[in-house]
């Protein structure tokens, strides 16, 4: 396993980066979001630390997802006006990465597909890869924080419109993001609680 060690430009704390796809991390000590380009490590400048302890997943947790071992590398939090959802960045022991959405403790395993969404004309149903999805929610979201390592540089405060939906059988999820570009489509699976286990579930919370 190749390890890179970088220092936070904000506080100097060292961080070892194991995932080659990591483009950014939030310093665990000072909360500075840090990214790097070809020349050097830079700080975005805005503090972006999130409070911990309130979610099922947590940074640097280890567990099993559908029988595959993983660890959580980072998290991005989005605010949709009436609440939050978190997106967790996972690295599996086989080297693959994955995104888990945790919305009010419902977990959804998502991946981006190479398709563009149709224009949002108020459609109630949409089909991707031969699978029909029903729109459950439309709204506008804003990235309000992040922690750990991430495979892209987060733009804090950036807003975008989104559409969430599910397949009628309730097994698959749909996420559409409309940003400045043509938009992105994410398909996923809703996870039953037992499909993901953590080494430290923390069920003994008080």
């Amino acid at each position: 396993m190749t390890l890179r060690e970088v220092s936070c430009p904000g506080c100097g704390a060292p961080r070892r980066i194991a995932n080659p796809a990591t483009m950014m991390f939030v310093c665990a000590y000072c909360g500075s979001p840090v990214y790097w380009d070809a020349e050097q490590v830079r700080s975005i400048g805005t503090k972006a630390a999130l409070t911990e302890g309130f979610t099922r997943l947590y940074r640097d947790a280890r567990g099993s997802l559908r029988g595959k071992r993983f660890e959580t590398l980072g998290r991005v939090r989005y605010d949709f006006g009436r609440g939050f959802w978190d997106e967790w960045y996972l690295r599996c022991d086989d080297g693959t990465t994955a995104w888990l959405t945790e919305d009010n403790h419902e977990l959804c395993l998502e991946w981006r597909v190479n398709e563009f969404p149709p224009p949002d004309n108020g459609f109630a149903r949409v089909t991707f890869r031969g699978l029909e999805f029903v729109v459950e929610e439309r709204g506008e979201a804003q990235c309000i924080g992040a922690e750990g390592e991430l495979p892209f540089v987060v733009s804090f405060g950036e807003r975008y419109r989104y559409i969430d939906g599910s397949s009628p059988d309730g097994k698959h999820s749909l996420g559409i993001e409309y940003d400045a570009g043509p938009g992105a489509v994410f398909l996923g699976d809703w996870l039953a609680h037992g499909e993901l286990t953590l080494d430290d579930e923390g069920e003994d919370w008080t």
Partner: protein
Amino acid sequence: MNEPVGRIRPTLVPRTVRCTACGGTLTQRSDALRFVVCRYCGAHLELGDVEARVLAKGERNRPGFAYEIDHAFVWEGVRYVVAARMVFTQEDDGEVSETVEYLLWSPRRGTLYLDYDDGRWLLSWMVHVMPRCDDAFSLAEGAHVNTHDGQGWTLEEVGTSRLAYIDGSLPWVARVGDTVGYATFRAAADRDKGYEVERDHGEIEFCLFRAVSRQELDVASGKPKEPDTAAAKPREHGGPAPSLDEDLEGILPRDDTAATRRWLLWMSGAAACFCLLNLGVAAHASSSAVQVLDRTIPPGFKPPPPPPPPAVEKDEPDDPLEPVEPPDNSPPEPEEVPVVGGVELPTGSFRLEKDTFLRIEFSAPALMNSWASVDVAVVQGDDDATHIMDAELTRYSDDDPDESTVSDTLDAWIDDPGSYHLVVRLLGARGTSETGGDIPVPVRIQAWAMPRLPLPFYLMAIASGVMAVVLFVVSRVTGRRRTPAEKEEDDE
């Protein structure tokens, strides 16, 4: 090779937020909870990153609930607590019914909903399974529908629920008056199971539910088994549902902290008003004082000698045989010691009414590096001294200004009406001589008479002031009463 070890789970430490409306300290169990109702003043608060924003004032009439906020339930081995309590109303053909909903929350599992509806307890949870129809809300009651997981349902009711009351905290922002459309189905095979489609603000949600017996509820909530009071009462469908108070009166405790605090604040305010009223009356009484004496005694003043007493003829004993009292050879009373130095004079007389407050002020503004002593007697009629008081006036250039006294006030409460005058003895000296003589500077004597307020008035003023302060402090302490969760933690 050993597998890498994950980080230890960070501790769940509830955050503390302060109510923007009343300053009460509230516990935020999760940073995902965006909305909280202040448990003290009932204000509805939207929790931001920095501060809480007041969305609405608190409800004055709080319905009774079977379970308090933070009450713990264990479902299938998972601990949940009551995070919020909501009352929804539904209107059907002019008849209003009521549903009570408890939001049960676990930081690891999310939310369950415990409803008390139409005399039954229901436990529901969110799913994403959808019905095999285009629009569940356009179906006729009694219609049969299958969901995409193969289960069959019968449409029981379509309607709109209105949020009528809420307390606790929620992971979303809610407002009283929010409406949600619902279509409720019952399982074709099992009437105790159901399915519901809800929509509001363009969002559509689905949930499954099942009936929960009172006994099952008691086990889950850790309460001893009790008679199935709530479930046993038959209720006509569609009629106004009695509140849980009516069902569970006498069985369940009620949390009246907020009401108590409001009552204490009301009482504190009333006591403060009463105190202010008393102070106002006292101020008015003071302003109606009448000056009855104003006289300045210059240095070296000598009062005219008193007229000689009339000659008294010696009484002859009526009976020569009656024994004659021996002469009084006891020493004179101290008051009868003749004045040495200084001046003693009577003032002019003035009339005082019954229950009058007499204020006498002595002032010597020219006093410098000298002292003056004043003894004064309030005399009723010719020689009935009712009050004897004294005052000291001093000022020295090297004194602290706070220690100098060039004026002093004496008060006397007059009980009986009549003609009064003062007998004043003035003594003084320049420098620090302890031997008194004539007063070194003029001394002004003024007296005012004002109606005396009855003693109960003063006692009431003091009592109301003390009561206002005590009630206010108690209301603040009540506002910081520990939450049930905190008590539980402390007990553990």
